[in-house]
C-alpha cells in the first residue's frame, strides 16, 4: 500500500525580473509512490530537483515554487488527502504525524541561542496535548536514549555539539511524533565517514523498529547502496529509472544510471575517469525530448523529438528510455 503518492506532479520556480518571466522546471511530470515499511532512495545529480520534489511532497510550496500540474496524495488511516489542494490548517494536522522531515543542511537549523530541550518544546508546543516541562524533558530524554544519544544533549546549545550529534538531534526531532513517513534530505552529506556510518545505522534502526517508511534524498550512491530498498533516479526534473536497489546497481538500464553507477571512484583504482561530457540541460529553457540526449552515448534521432515514458520493464523496475520502450511520455494538464 502506498502512503504518499505523486501523480504527474509538476512544480516550477516561476520568477519575474525586469518583466521577463523565468520558469525553472525543477519537477516535471513526476509520478511515484512511497510504500509502507520501505526505505526509498531518491538519487540524481545536483540541481536535478531532488529537494524541490521533497518539498512538494511535503506540501511546503512557497513562491516562487508553484505546483502547476498533477497532485500529491497522502493515504492517512485508509483515507486519501490531496495535499496540493489542502489548506494550511489541514496540512498542519497531518504534517509531523503522517510525514516529517529532516531538511537539507538541517544541522544548521537548530536555533543557536536555545538549548536543545527548548527546541524540543517549541517543536511539540502546537502539536501535542499540553505537557509539563518535566514530562516533556522525560519524553525527549527517553526518545534520545532509544536512539543512542545521551540525555545530556538536552541541556546543550547547538554550538556545543558536533555536526554528527546535531544531525542526530534533528533526526530525533523528526521521529519524535512517530510519523509514518520520514523524509530526509542529504542527512549525511558533509558528515565525516565514521559519523555518517553512525547516522546510517541510526536511520536504518529506526526504520526497522518502527516499520515506518523513510525517503532518503542523497546523491551519494554508496549511502543508497547501504540503506535503501528501492531507488528513484532523477535527471533534470524527471524520473528516468526506478527499481529495487539490487537491480539499480546490478542491472541499470538507463544510460544515465549506467553512467552514474559506473563512474564512481574506488580506492585502489587510479585510472583516469572522465567527468560526464557536458552538463545537464538548463531547466529554465524550453525542453523537448529526452533530457539526457546531449550527453547520451546512445542517443537516437527519436530522442530529440519526444520524451520517453517511464514504463515497467520487469518486476519493480521502470525505465524511461527509447532503447527500452518506444512509448512517449504523456503530459499532465
Amino acid at each position, binding site marked *: 500500500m502506498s502512503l504518499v503518492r505523486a501523480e504527474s506532479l509538476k512544480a516550477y*520556480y516561476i520568477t519575474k*525580473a525586469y518583466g521577463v518571466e523565468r520558469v525553472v522546471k525543477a519537477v516535471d511530470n513526476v509520478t511515484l509512490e512511497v510504500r509502507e515499511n520501505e526505505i526509498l532512495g531518491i538519487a*540524481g*545529480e*545536483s*540541481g536535478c530537483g531532488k*529537494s524541490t520534489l521533497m518539498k512538494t511532497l511535503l506540501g511546503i510550496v512557497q513562491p516562487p515554487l508553484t505546483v502547476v500540474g498533477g497532485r500529491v496524495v497522502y493515504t492517512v488511516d485508509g483515507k486519501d488527502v490531496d495535499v496540493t489542494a489542502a489548506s494550511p490548517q489541514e496540512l498542519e494536522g497531518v504534517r509531523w504525524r503522517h510525514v516529517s522531515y529532516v531538511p*537539507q*543542511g538541517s544541522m544548521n537549523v537548530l536555533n543557536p541561542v536555545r538549548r536543545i530541550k527548548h527546541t524540543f518544546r517549541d517543536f511539540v508546543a502546537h502539536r501535542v496535548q499540553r505537557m509539563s516541562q518535566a514530562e516533556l524533558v522525560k519524553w525527549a530524554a527517553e526518545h534520545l536514549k532509544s536512539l543512542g544519544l545521551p540525555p545530556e544533549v538536552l541541556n546543550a546549545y547547538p554550538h*556545543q555539539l*558536533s*555536526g*554528527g550529534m546535531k544531525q542526530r538531534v534533528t533526526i530525533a526531532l523528526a521521529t519524535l511524533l512517530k510519523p509514518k513517513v520520514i523524509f530526509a534530505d542529504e542527512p549525511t*552529506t*558533509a*558528515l*565525516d*565517514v*565514521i*559519523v*555518517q*556510518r*553512525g547516522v*546510517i*545505522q541510526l536511520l536504518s534502526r529506526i526504520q526497522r523498529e518502527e516499520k515506518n517508511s523513510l525517503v532518503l534524498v542523497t*546523491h*551519494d*550512491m*554508496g*549511502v*543508497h*547502496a*547501504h540503506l535503501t530498498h528501492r531507488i528513484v533516479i532523477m535527471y533534470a526534473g524527471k524520473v528516468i529509472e526506478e527499481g529495487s*536497489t*539490487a537491480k539499480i*546497481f546490478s542491472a541499470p538500464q538507463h544510460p544515465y544510471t549506467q*553512467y*552514474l*553507477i559506473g*563512474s*564512481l*571512484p*574506488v*580506492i*585502489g*583504482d*587510479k585510472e583516469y*575517469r*572522465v*567527468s*560526464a561530457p557536458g*552538463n545537464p540541460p*538548463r531547466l529554465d529553457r524550453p525542453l523537448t525530448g529526452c533530457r539526457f540526449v546531449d550527453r547520451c552515448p546512445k542517443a537516437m534521432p527519436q530522442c530529440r523529438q519526444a520524451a520517453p515514458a517511464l514504463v515497467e520493464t520487469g518486476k519493480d523496475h521502470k525505465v524511461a528510455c527509447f532503447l527500452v520502450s518506444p512509448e512517449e511520455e504523456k503530459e499532465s494538464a
Partner: protein
Amino acid sequence: MPEQASLLSVKELSRVFILRSGLTRTRIAAVNRVSFELAAGRPEIFSIVGESGSGKSTLARMLLGLLEPSEGKIIYKGRDVTAIRRRRDRLAFMKEVQPVFQNPFDTFNPLKKVETYLYETVYNFGMTDNVREADRIIDDALRAAGLSLVEVKGRYPNELSGGQLQRAAVARALITQPSLIIADEPVSMMDASLRMSVVNLFKELKERLGVTVIYITHDLATAYYVSDRIVVMLRGNVVEQGPVEKVLAAPLHPYTRLLKESVPKPDPKDKWEGEVKLATSEGVEYARAGCKFAGRCPYVQDACIREAPPDVEFDGRIVKCHRVEEIASGTAQPAQNGSAPPEALRSPKAGSQAG
C-alpha cells in the same frame, strides 16, 4: 645534499584552543606539531583527511594566514607567513594562496547576487579596472569550473543548487591565478559526477598551470583518485602520512583503516556488518595523554594509553603508532577486553587490501 626549494614549508605547527563546556575548561591542541613540505616546481595534490574535529580546518586557516599559530612556522616561498605585516605584502600573499571553503552558502552572501563576489575579487586584487575585461576573467574562471557567466548572472545564492554554488566558489578562487589553492572540503556538498569534475579540474590546474592544491576532504575515494600524497589527521595529530597509494590502498594505522572501512561502497552486496564504535566526545579524545585513538583502537595496550606514540618511519610513510610493525606483519593481537572492534579491524588483512 642541497635542500630542495620549497613552496610551502610547515614546521612543528601547533594551535591551542580552550574549550569551555559548563564549568570545565579544556585545553586542546587542535593542531599539534604538524610538519610537512610542498616542493616548489613540483606541483602536487596534497590531501588532508580525518574525522570531523580533527583539526583540518584549523590547519588550513593557519596556512591561509587567517589564524595565528600558537607555535611553529609556516614558510611560503621563503617568507614567514605569520610575520607579514604590510597590507601590500598580505595582498600579494592572498593572491598567491587562495581558499575554497567548506560551505558555499557561507561563502556567498544570501542577499547579494552571486556574481557580486566574483567582481569584488577581480577588483580587490587589481586584476583589471575594465568591466568588459572583468567579464572575460570571470567567465573564464566559471567555465573552468563547469559554469558560465550567463548562467550565473543575476542569480542569488538560493537560486543555485548547492553543487552549482560550490563550483562558483572554486571559480572565484581561480580568478587571481594562484600558485596554491587550499580547498577545505570543496566537494562535500556535491554529487559524484561534480566531485569528479572538480577533482579533475584540480588535476588539470596542477598539470597545465602548475598549481599545487591542498585538498581537505572526507571523501577518501576522490582523495585516493586525485592526490599524490596524503596526511591523515586525528585530534590534532598527523597519524599517517605518505604516498596515497600506500596510505589509502594499504593503511597501517588502525584509525586510517577504520576511515577506509567506513566509506560506504557503492555495492548493495557489500554492506557493513556490526555497529561502528563512535568516538566519545572530541574533548575526551583530545585530552588523552597517550594515543588519541586508544579509546577506539582494537590493538590498544597499556603503552598506548600512557604515552603518545612516536612517529615511526615504516614502508615509505610515517605512522604515529606504538605497534605499527606488529600491525603491518599481522602479528598484533586485538585487545580482548572492551567492546568488539569494527569487523574490518578484526582481521589484520581486511583493511589493507587494495580496492
